[in-house]
């Protein structure tokens, strides 16, 4: 399936084996009028993550690690195929998170080869083909994975065991480090322009070199978005939230990614867990991911966010965003500062 939409995070659908990418409004009009789009064949990149993911490491950490490794322009002009045992081991929802942030690695699209997990996930869906149509569709989908020996323009190999729970410190998604890391030192940058850019970022983000990232105190927590607003994300956050209360002075929001996710979470009692812990349970939507609806932070507020972009001003002018996984964000809400999920009592 080929799927386009006027939103760069359309790449999310690559988790289903679709070629899915974001386009601008002129191209949206072109598709609506003609069902066509002029395209050049993109280059392809395979990112293989082999091995077992460590304790507390989620799909969000995998993609932040990948972006920190290859950079935000690392896959420019490419479609990424995510492969390897660690990727196959991810749930469908984890794969959606992974493909979602392909754009933050510079790629237009990211894909995971469809497998039994994909088919099982689709079989339950309301608009999935039924009966003989399902069988025919399945036969076609089984032919979608890359051939053995397929050639890629770029190959990246990553050892799953090397991936830690990740947090971003700067204003680019590539500014990510392990949760037990310290803020890097601009003096280690040889390029003066980059050193200056880093110092500007430190001023904006209120950082100093060598500071453990877990010492950063938070004003707000946002759990939601197309990156991490699915039911598994809310379950992971609730599993942490049930162990405590939101720290004094922290405003913590949970925003389901869609109305069906909200209903399902409520059916599972997750909303009660969040409310009991002092989180606000809000209406589904994009909310603080980009704040088009006015749901933004105040200047200088430090925000733990499960969304996809930590750009300057993204969550409100002067807002200081740190990206992380839902469990890490929930744990940070309880602690009042960024935490390493591996050191949280009761994290499972």
């Amino acid at each position: 399936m080929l799927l386009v939409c006027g939103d760069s995070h359309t790449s999310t659908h690559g988790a289903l084996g679709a070629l899915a990418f974001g386009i601008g409004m002129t191209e949206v009009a072109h598709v609506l009028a003609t069902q066509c789009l002029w395209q050049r064949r993109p280059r392809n990149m395979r990112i293989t993550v082999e091995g077992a993911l460590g304790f507390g490491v989620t799909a969000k950490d995998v993609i932040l690690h990948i972006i920190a490794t290859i950079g935000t322009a690392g896959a420019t002009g490419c479609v990424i195929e995510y492969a390897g045992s660690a990727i196959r081991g991810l749930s469908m929802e984890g794969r959606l998170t992974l493909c979602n942030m392909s754009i933050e690695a510079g790629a237009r699209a990211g894909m995971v080869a469809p497998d039994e997990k994909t088919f099982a996930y689709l079989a339950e869906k309301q608009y999935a083909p039924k009966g003989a149509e399902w069988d025919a569709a399945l036969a076609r989908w089984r032919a979608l994975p890359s051939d053995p020996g397929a050639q890629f323009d770029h190959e990246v190999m990553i050892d799953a065991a090397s991936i830690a729970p990740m947090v971003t410190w700067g204003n680019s998604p590539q500014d990510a480090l392990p949760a037990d890391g310290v803020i890097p030192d601009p003096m280690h940058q040889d390029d003066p322009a980059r050193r200056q850019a880093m110092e500007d970022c430190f001023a904006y983000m209120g950082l100093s070199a060598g500071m453990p990232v877990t010492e950063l105190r938070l004003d707000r927590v946002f759990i939601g978005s197309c990156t991490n607003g699915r039911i598994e994300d809310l379950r992971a956050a609730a599993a942490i939230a049930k162990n405590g209360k939101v720290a004094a002075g922290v405003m913590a929001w949970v925003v389901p990614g869609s109305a069906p996710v909200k209903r399902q979470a409520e059916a599972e009692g997750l909303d009660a867990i969040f409310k009991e812990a002092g989180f606000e349970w809000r209406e589904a939507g994009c909310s603080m991911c980009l704040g088009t609806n006015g749901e933004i932070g105040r200047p200088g507020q430090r925000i733990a966010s499960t969304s996809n972009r930590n750009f300057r001003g993204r969550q409100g002018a002067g807002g200081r965003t740190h990206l992380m996984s839902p469990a890490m964000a929930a744990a940070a809400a309880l602690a009042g500062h960024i935490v390493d999920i591996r050191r949280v009592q009761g994290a499972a």
Partner: protein
Amino acid sequence: MEPFISLKSNAVPLVQDNIDTDQIIPARFLARPRDDDHGINFFRDLRFDANGQEIPEFPLNRPNWRDARIILGGRNFACGSSRENAVWALHGWGARAVIAPSFGDIFAINAVKNGVLPIMLSADAVSALMAATIADPEAVIAIDFPEQTVTAPDGTVHRFEIDPFAKRSLLEGLDELAFTMTHEEDIAAFERRFGRDNF
């Protein structure tokens, strides 16, 4: 669409890498109609302070660069959100070309469809152009689109690559939608064939 053929102008340098489209136009302006003046919101939060006063140090506010029609960008210029408003803002401000070592893919595509030419040159070539324009803000850069060249103020000529279809569209100011519609029968035939085998 207005065609792009050639351009001689001084250029404004925005030296940072990874400038994202959230900087180019913040999300709170995205709901405005296409026909609005988006130029006023170009780099809104870097050009103006919270009180709406110009920030004099920002390059777009420097007197010599206000009329520049070329932007020199860092690596991965206009990455991030697919918002076409970023191109509208850039165009509305008055720029017609961006020269950078690399672009966010979606921005580069959107640019071509709005009469703005994205030119990729080597990082060294862009750095040299930035240095020249910082030394002399009035220094003129010449873009010859049919020849696919950029001539630096010191006379150095850089050749750039562009997709042939994008080049034709921009040179002719082609309405891409009208062009595609001339293939309507082919599209319908494909859909009949495709629809039989897929759903």
